[in-house]
């Protein structure tokens, strides 16, 4: 009963937020002169209607899952890693350089590039972690700043060091290190499988191991964790490193599976998208992955919607933004005692007597 109540509380906000966002989005569509039901139908048809569409949606969802899981894991430990994007980029750079310089191909090359990406992301995540724990610096500011460092570093690589003739981009990596597709005719690759595996592992670690249990305890209440003998600093640092490694792994998977080269705009915005998705997913790894998939649907489907009904893709952006706004507002709302009382009424529970 108690678990059901918790699950109910956790699902209510995201689902209601999505409904409300679509409601308002529908009103905007109607105001633009389109039939909202038709527009939404095309939105989903674009994302799921064809085999290629599904492939594109899943491809789009993959990097979002990685950055969302990166944010999710850090927040579970109570640290705010806003550097998902930088860690993602460092991962993609490390993967690219590994392929470019070692020339390894095939399975060994792929695994090495992925590991290099995870390592680079982990190191990039470790920097704000170390500065926070040893020097008390604000991890949010440092991780954001490191995003710029990573973006600019990538810029140096594709404009100067390893430029593809006169185009500001690097040459593409060898086809032999591309992540293979799983289903022919659909674009998504083993990167998706890795993302889902990471999500499942995070779920297991967070909810089924002592380490995850303690990590969540640190996230909820650092002082009490310390009083109860949990090495708080070590857990926070570990969560920074792991969270960075997840984003880095995502960056390398994106490079090996989708982009193949470093180029202007690589991974732009993924970091902050990930933060929003983790929050909408209530910091639950599996829910977070579903939210990432949902956002990919909105992004992929909106082009079809625009082509078919003339509703601009920006309406889809508005819906995405509204989901975020409603979720955040909803989470604040559920913290109110009135909400708790209402929930208890719904579940017909009498308030326990004061003892």
């Amino acid at each position: 009963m108690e678990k059901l109540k918790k699950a109910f509380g956790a699902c209510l906000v995201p689902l209601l937020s999505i409904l409300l966002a679509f409601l308002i989005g529908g009103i905007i569509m109607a105001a633009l002169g389109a039939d909202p039901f038709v527009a939404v139908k095309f939105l989903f048809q674009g994302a799921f209607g064809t085999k290629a569409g599904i492939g594109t949606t899943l491809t789009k969802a993959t990097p979002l899952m990685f950055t969302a899981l990166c944010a999710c894991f850090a927040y579970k430990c109570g640290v705010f890693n806003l550097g998902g994007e930088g860690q993602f980029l460092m991962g993609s750079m490390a993967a690219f350089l590994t392929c470019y310089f070692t020339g390894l191909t095939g399975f060994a090359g792929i695994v090495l590039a992925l590991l290099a990406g995870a390592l680079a992301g982990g190191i990039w995540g470790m920097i704000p972690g170390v500065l926070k724990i040893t020097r008390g610096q604000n991890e949010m500011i440092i991780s954001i700043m490191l995003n710029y460092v990573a973006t600019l570093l990538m810029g140096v690589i594709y404009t100067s060091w390893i430029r593809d003739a006169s185009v500001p981009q690097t040459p593409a990596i060898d086809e032999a290190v591309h992540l293979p597709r799983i289903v022919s005719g659909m674009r998504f690759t083993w990167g998706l499988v890795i993302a889902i595996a990471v999500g499942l592992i995070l779920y297991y670690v967070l909810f089924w191991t002592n380490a995850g249990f303690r990590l969540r305890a640190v996230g909820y209440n650092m002082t009490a964790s310390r009083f109860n003998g949990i090495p708080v600093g070590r857990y926070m640092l570990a969560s920074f490193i792991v969270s960075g490694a997840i984003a880095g792994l995502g960056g390398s998977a994106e490079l090996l599976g989708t982009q193949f080269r470093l180029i202007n705009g690589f991974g732009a915005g993924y970091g902050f998208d990930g933060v929003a998705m983790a929050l909408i997913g209530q910091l639950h790894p599996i829910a977070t992955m579903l939210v990432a998939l949902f956002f990919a649907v909105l992004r992929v489907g909106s082009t079809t919607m625009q082509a078919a009904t003339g509703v601009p893709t920006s309406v889809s952006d508005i819906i995405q933004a509204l989901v975020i706004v409603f979720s955040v507002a909803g989470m604040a709302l559920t913290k109110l005692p009135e909400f708790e009382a209402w929930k208890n009424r719904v579940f017909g529970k009498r308030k326990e007597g004061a003892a």
Partner: protein
Amino acid sequence: MEELLRMEHISKRFGNFYANQDINFSVAKGEVHTLLGENGAGKSTLMNILIGLYQPTEGKIFLNGQEVRIDSPSQAVKLGIGMVHQHFMLVEAMTVFDNIILGDKHAKGVFIDRAARRKEIEALSEKYGLDVQLDKLITDISVGEQQRTEILKALYHGAELLILDEPSAALTDIEVEGLFAIMHKLIGEGKSIIFISHKMREVLRISDRITILRLGKVVGTVNRADTDGQKLANLMIGKELTESQYEKIDASGAEVVAELDHVDFNKESKHSGLSDLSLKIHAGEIVGVAGVDGNGQTQLAQLITGVLAPDAGEVHLKGKRVAVFDPNGFIEHGVCHVPEDRNLQGLIGDMSIAENLVLKDADDARFSKGRGLLLKKRAIGDYARRMAEKYDVRCTSVDQSVRSLSGGNQQKVILARELENDPALLVMAHPTRGLDIGATSFVHEQMIGARERGVGILLISADFDEILEMSDRIVVCFEGGIMGEFSGKNPPVEEISLAMTGK
């Protein structure tokens, strides 16, 4: 003397709990009237009513003989009531001058006539000897100067009645002298002061009258001239000695489970440090630490549980010297801790009762496979249900978040976790604060049970009755040191309360 403020029959109820009950309190013009009482005696509630943060459940407030309703802090300011909070309410990144004129009611238009305001403030500062550097940033001035800024601000906003909440807590001795000089000047000019403190010496020096609160009620109002530290201490902590229902034990022959040897911590601060403190706790005894709150008890509890590391001196657990100060190391040596703030330090409020119960040992084979690699959730749930029954935790389910429990039940969760770890030393800081009678006696029964199993218990409490009731041995904490040690059997109450005031 002419009366400025009168509060009549003030009661404030939270749920079933009376924070203030039928309080009568008055302040005359040109008087320093002290409110004396332990933490939780109701001083803050009463003052929050006076400055409009709370509305009284019952009672009336009169200012200059007229009944007033104070429904907001700005209303209080308008009526000439100014409060200097213990933790200053200043904008650190702004200058002293800007802080003082913040929220200014004199300003008529959009613009501030800074020159005129400045002249006014300088005149006030001169008149009361409130020496401040108007153009310095708050972050760049001393705590004493910040306090003067607060007082100046209150006066600038027209305060006739100043409430000073523990004003000396953060000050050095010299700054306290300066503060007292200012207070004398203020009352000389006809202002009135409500002084909140539990430092006996200061109270006796500065007050005209003293009102003692205890458990939300007024115990008495006395003139400074008619009292002394002894009498005040007795009033404050309640003097009647009731025979303890527990047998007192002499465990001086038993093993020493913990020893502090000439320990210093943050020695300069008399109220949040320890200096040259030595203490032994034997197996199977309850050592009670009496003392007015804020004489180092918090630091003592955290030091003997590894949360804080001493600056000098040694700590021994079961005869072994501790080298590394870290709570986990202490836990492994059998030190358990019921901390003073159960929500902040003891429990993970958003986690379930079951999770909180196994917080320290989820990697134990009972609760997980492979030393924590796979939690046995069913075993944890079963264990939690057993504990909930054994420790009488009243809940609908052990999956319920611990935050949703009442204070007494939260404390039982902590007790269950700490006692089931089979401690050698149990440190309990204010274990029954805020608990009702039933929960309190449950905690006490558990303590006696643990003592009989050979656990050494360090009980820190501001509730003097609890110390007398439970302790086999009583030590008194005063300004970071041990002021005396007394037997728990037929304790010399007079001597102990004297020791608590530093004599």
